[in-house]
């Protein structure tokens, strides 16, 4: 019995095309990451710290704009102790001249500015973060695979893992390709993408499992289509609300959240796509069959449906 109001899109029929799209995006992403490399932000690279003293309290926004217009990247400007003392952090490899350069620039607008000190500052995150978090991610993926294999079946676990890697690589690839600033907020966004993508994949899987158990036909692509179509309105609603939030953040939020929003925007679009075409569609070449999901002894009532 098919729900009348449901669209019936033949998702699986177009899976070859989707594979090609995925492959192209993956190759482009990996190439971008290897050739162009990630453009790490101040959080990761460290840079130069400059302390200056003004004659009279300056406007911090004006200093920010001035420095950014002069080509300095990732500028942070803060008052330091008194309203006339300003601490500036720049993502600029430290050399002895940077301090003088910045002071000259600030003097050009007519203020009296003195350099108190200029010094190199290290990254805000240590090697420990990279090593530990990388390890954490690997362990997390391993445990998730075991859980999915236990709750569903190992073929599902493989699909979920590939979908997850697909999403992360493409989001990171976009940041490498367009040389966007990769800082700690982007890292948080990528972790959020992992959560979202996994969530989406499991919801689709759950419906696939249910459809396989209850469906009377044996044509797997057809069963997959039914399952995906049944979750389609949910998928659109959830990614819809999330995308609404992200669009608001991207368009109105300003510099600080811009990259955060871009990472998630890309991640959610790709994550939704991969739940269907990577996580689910890959179950076909993995030769998922009804026997994989229906234990032979338990759930006798469902076994009846297997009879031709």
């Amino acid at each position: 019995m098919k729900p009348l109001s449901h669209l019936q899109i033949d998702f699986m029929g177009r899976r070859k095309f989707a594979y090609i799209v995925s492959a192209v995006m993956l190759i482009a992403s990996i190439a971008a990451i290897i050739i162009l490399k990630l453009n790490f932000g101040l959080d990761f690279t460290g840079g130069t710290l400059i302390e200056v003293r003004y004659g009279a309290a300056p406007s911090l926004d004006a200093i920010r704009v001035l420095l950014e217009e002069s080509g300095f990247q990732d500028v942070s400007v803060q008052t330091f102790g008194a309203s006339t003392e300003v601490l500036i952090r720049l993502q600029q490899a430290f050399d002895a001249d940077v301090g003088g350069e910045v002071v000259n620039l600030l003097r050009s607008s007519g203020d009296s500015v003195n350099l108190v000190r200029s010094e190199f500052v290290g990254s805000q995150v240590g090697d420990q973060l990279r090593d530990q978090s990388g390890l954490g991610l690997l362990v997390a993926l391993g445990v998730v695979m075991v859980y999915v294999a236990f709750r569903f079946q190992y073929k599902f676990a493989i699909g979920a893992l590939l979908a997850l890697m697909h999403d992360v690589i493409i989001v990171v690839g976009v940041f490498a390709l367009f040389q966007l600033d990769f800082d700690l907020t982007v890292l948080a966004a990528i972790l959020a993408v992992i959560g979202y993508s996994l969530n989406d994949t499991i919801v689709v899987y759950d419906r696939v499992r249910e459809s396989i158990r209850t469906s009377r036909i044996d044509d797997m692509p057809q069963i997959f289509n039914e399952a995906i179509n049944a979750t389609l309105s949910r998928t659109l609603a959830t990614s819809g609300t999330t995308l609404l939030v992200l669009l608001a953040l991207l368009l109105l939020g300003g510099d600080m959240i811009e990259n955060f929003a871009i990472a998630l925007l890309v991640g959610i679009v790709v994550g939704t796509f991969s739940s269907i075409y990577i996580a689910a569609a890959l179950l076909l070449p993995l030769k998922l069959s009804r026997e994989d999901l229906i234990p032979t002894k338990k759930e006798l009532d469902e076994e009846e449906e297997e009879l031709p």
Partner: protein
Amino acid sequence: MLNRYPLWKYLLILVVLVVGLIYSLPNLFPEDPAIQISSAQGDSLDERQIERVETALIENDIDVKALEKENGQWLIRLRHDDDQLNARDIAADLLGNDATVALNLAEATPEWLQAFSASPMTLGLDLRGGVHFLLEVDMDAALTQRLEVNASAMRELLRGERIRYRNTEVEERSLSIDFASAEDRDTARSLISRDFPDFEYSSEGDGRASSLVMTLSDQSVNEIQDYAINQNLTTLRNRVNELGVAEPMVQRQGPNQIVVELPGIQDTVAAKRIVGATANLEFRLEARPDTPENETETLTFRNEPARTAELMRDVIITGDSVSSASNSFDENGRPQVNIDLDGTGGTLMNRATRTNIGRNMAVLFIEHKSEDTVVTDPETGEETIEREPYVERGLISLATIQSALGNSFRITGLDSPTEAAELALLLRSGSLAAPIYFVQERTIGPSLGAENIERGLLSVQIGLLLVVLFMLVRYKVFGVFANIALALNLTLLVAVMSMLGATLTLPGIAGIVLTLGMAVDANVLIFERIREELRNGMSVQQAIQAGYERAFTSIVDANITTLLVAVILFSIGTGPVKGFAVTLSIGILTSLFTALMVTRAMVNLVYGSKPVKKLWI
């Protein structure tokens, strides 16, 4: 009857919500930027002077929110963060030497909420700024400490090979050992140089005056110093950001300094104690009466300076081998610290205690401190501060080894529960590879401009509004349920974050709203399922029941998988990754509670156990 909840479920929901409300409410009363004025002489200030300050502030377009007098001190609360520094400068100029003017964040939480020890989340360095500490790492001490460790290992090596040595001496960059004969020295040299390639060796003297001098090469000095800085950075990060939600900034500055910035700190004394503490532990055996004197050391007890004990020079393990530590109380209500050792530490401890049952083992509490003295140059009259570092060592316990110790044990003999808690935190977060000293302490303004903050907050509000509208349009009455659940979800999330002492940054706020955008997923799943079952011809009550029931496995599977990732990231990750995992886990748990239980309760209250013909969904 379908769709009815037993009373206890309603009560449970009510209790959780009330608790959530209490602990999230303080965030509606953010701390006020304020300046604190106290008299320099200690007497109370003239009210007219305060009035003059107020007039001056108003003349300079600074909005004054309130004037308060407390314990002879005046607190001027301001409306805008930007004005704080300016206001302090104005007040300080006006009052001159009569008064001390300091920045302050004045708590605005009503007293009845403070009674529940509820407090608001701290605003991050990007939104409000905080306090900036500049610390200097004592590089000389880093070298000496490393040399001491090497000397101890060399002594053990020589003893193992039965080579007799007389004296070991540690100097700035070198280490020397005296031997009774040149042959001993030469054998020792070939033995030691095999294990310690970082040194440059030279043999000095002859016969009974022969000694071996080992000097660190420039390269290994650099390596040791780099290691010391990096180790200290890691340790400080762990100390100030245990859960990963405190959003501090810890970075290296120049060759031997470290910057620590903490958001929204008012009690800089407490912060300095944790940041600058260099406490460590050493476990040593008590000397036997026949132990040669050059292998022992006499130390006093921390609580009873008159009592002393003779200890072995060799250290069994130090606090560096501790893998985790927590504080609690022993049977007699005295504070204690429970310690778990890492693998190597456990083996060393076991080996040392197994063969020494019946002897006493001492726990030594070591603190690096420094004393500043102002020195005036007799020629130029310039004043410079000279820092004299010194080390305080004191025994905190001396107990008989009853049986071989393993990986975990406890130590007592601490002064107070606070000291136990701080020692546990310090042991957990790792030890400092070299002592550190405070060089500078300043307040620091927000790193984001006012315009950026405003835009960020506006975008977040609009994002939230869009989600609410979307749910209303799509699910009508059920959309109202979902939106109420969303509001409660936000309340609970904020309540838990406040209880954990989390810091709110702009990306953090964006993350919370994003969590809410994603949290509607559970409700969307349920509502879509109800619609589907209605289309399939089920009755209203059956459809509601089936919708919740069938969506349940999807929701639980999806959320448990994500929760697994979060829990693992929390246990392995560090710093911001850990913080993200905390927020994610809380978000999952609160949204599961509100989406499953709270909306169901509302649906049951409105539609349950009565004839309903049509659902507005």
